[in-house]
């Protein structure tokens, strides 16, 4: 999505994919990729997110060059290695999460950002390892951890190797918790399945962007299972707030401020 957006020459009008209004693209970009008409938060890639979130030039990336080894030699209609290669060429990223150290409004943090544009930020061994390293880093360096989640879930092409990343990342969170570290989750569209059922649900404080889809099972799977229509607003950030699984819904423009505020209360 962000790809198309990036390709649009500045000053062009585009149609909001949510409300259908024609919006001035330049204004949407200035509004951090949020529709100026309806407030729809577009999905954004990891680099755009980092640029929006951290103090200019403060991001130092860790573990840049971790590659999947295709543990199963997986091939569906296309070999997994080929799929990875295409995603890497298309996005310019090696994998679906970026981790590093940064400042947010002058507060030093360990930051992890998932990239919904890279195989739906599904979690394989590399994503699991990088998320785990970010968590460990936060504990070692005694810094708050901010994890911006977005994921379609486990990466099927890595089979059980991907599923057990849920256990690995959650075990790492347990250690950070024991070290007394602050862990802030920012759940963005979509935070689902294996990622929702592991580190994304384990933050001390869980923030969510308005309208973000957050849930465990896919809506189609649920609709088929119960053989009924799903209620309006099901599995949104607002739904999760109402049911007690999200602390605050924070518009993108306020994220920096809100994160800094929580760090001032709970960080060390």
């Amino acid at each position: 999505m962000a790809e198309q957006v990036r390709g649009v020459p500045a000053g062009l009008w585009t149609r909001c994919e949510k409300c259908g209004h024609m919006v001035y693209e330049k204004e949407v970009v200035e509004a951090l990729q949020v529709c100026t008409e309806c407030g729809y938060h577009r999905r954004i890639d990891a680099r755009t997110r980092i640029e929006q979130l951290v103090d200019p030039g403060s991001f130092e990336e860790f573990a840049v060059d971790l590659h999947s080894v295709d543990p199963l030699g997986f091939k569906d209609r296309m070999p997994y290695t080929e799929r990875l290669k295409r995603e890497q060429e298309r996005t310019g990223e090696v994998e679906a999460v970026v981790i590093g150290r940064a400042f947010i409004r002058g507060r030093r943090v360990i930051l992890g950002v998932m990239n919904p544009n890279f195989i739906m930020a599904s979690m394989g061994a590399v994503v699991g390892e990088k998320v785990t390293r970010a968590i460990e880093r936060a504990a070692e360096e005694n810094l708050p951890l901010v994890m911006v989640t977005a994921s379609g879930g486990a990466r099927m092409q890595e089979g059980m190797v991907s599923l057990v990343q849920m256990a690995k990342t959650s075990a790492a969170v347990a250690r950070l918790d024991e070290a007394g570290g602050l862990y802030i989750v920012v759940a963005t569209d979509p935070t689902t399945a294996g990622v929702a059922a592991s580190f994304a649900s384990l933050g001390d404080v869980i923030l969510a962007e308005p309208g973000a889809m957050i849930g465990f099972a896919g809506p189609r799977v649920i609709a088929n299972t119960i053989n009924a229509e799903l209620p309006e607003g099901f599995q949104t950030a607002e739904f999760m707030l109402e049911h007690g699984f999200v602390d605050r819904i924070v518009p993108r423009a306020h994220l920096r401020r809100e994160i800094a505020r929580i760090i001032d209360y709970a960080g060390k």
Partner: protein
Amino acid sequence: MSSEPNSTPGAAAAASVGGFLDFEKPLLRIQQDIEELEREQAETGRDLNEEIKQQRTRLKSTLRRLYSSLTPWETVQVARHPKRPLSTDYLKLVFRDFCELHGDRVFGDDRAILTGFARVGPHKVAFVGHSKGREVRERITCNFGCAHPEGYRKSLRLMRLAEKFRLPVVCIIDTQGAYPGIGSEERGVAQAIATNLMEMSRLRTPVVCVVIGEGGSGGALGIGVGDRVAMLEHAFYSVISPEGCAAILWKTAEHRKQAAEALHLTAKELLKLGIIDHIIPEPLGGAHREPETTATNLEKYVVEALSEVKRRTIDTLLRRRYERIRALGSFFESPSEPKPEDGSVGGTHRRTSSRAARLRNRLTTGTSPES
């Protein structure tokens, strides 16, 4: 192994006739021959014992041939066999004096997971196990073994009791997955599973997990983190069902066989990948053919595993449990990566296993920069 007495010839086309699975068709024919011979012997008084004996030998060797080389899809069918022993069977055959404890103390009592105190061999344990149900009504009551968040929260409650009273935990896994429903989402099934993963990783008492049938994704893993993780020989454990995987990646459920193959979901494959650490053998022809033998094998494993983990101090146990979980998943880290200024990444935390290095050689179309 008895075929149903009232099965009509037309019914032979069904997927599972008289307890025979699709791929077991050769067995069905031999079984029918044996029954034919027995009937003839009874009716005519002719001595056909020699022929019957021959056919029985043939049956056994065919069984051995079929089961020594089950395909992943066949394994899935065996693991889902309607007669496969369930947790409730093992509660009678392996465990004794099951004292069921109900409810998550928050919302309800999820019948898809049974919890309570029990004895096995010389050990007193906290039992946590999926319950699928056998008869129709029972299956509906336990929601076919698909737990809601309450099931995971009840499990954690039991584990906390176990921790407090120094009982080891035994988790018996057999589920298609956590239940995908509105209530499940409203009551936070993702949060319930995540919390179990986190808490089980640091539970201060030994945890032994066994997948006995279906290991369905997060719903299985939600009670599947421990010091020992084993599988019955013909159980399977998968990130997604072969049908689900086929529907997503091949856009048609027809490709479930290929999906089952691609997912590496059998015990043998998962042992190779280091996901599990032991395979519990099943009797010839699968657990359902001899539940008692299977139970004996399961009991032997559980009792030995418990004795082993109980010997360790809890701190050693927890350290090893973490190390085991931490090491899951191989990847390749390019050594050309510039070291971060303080150098602590890539050194102490580097986990590129030798397995990863071996696998790397398979990456012919790989994208990793050659170092």
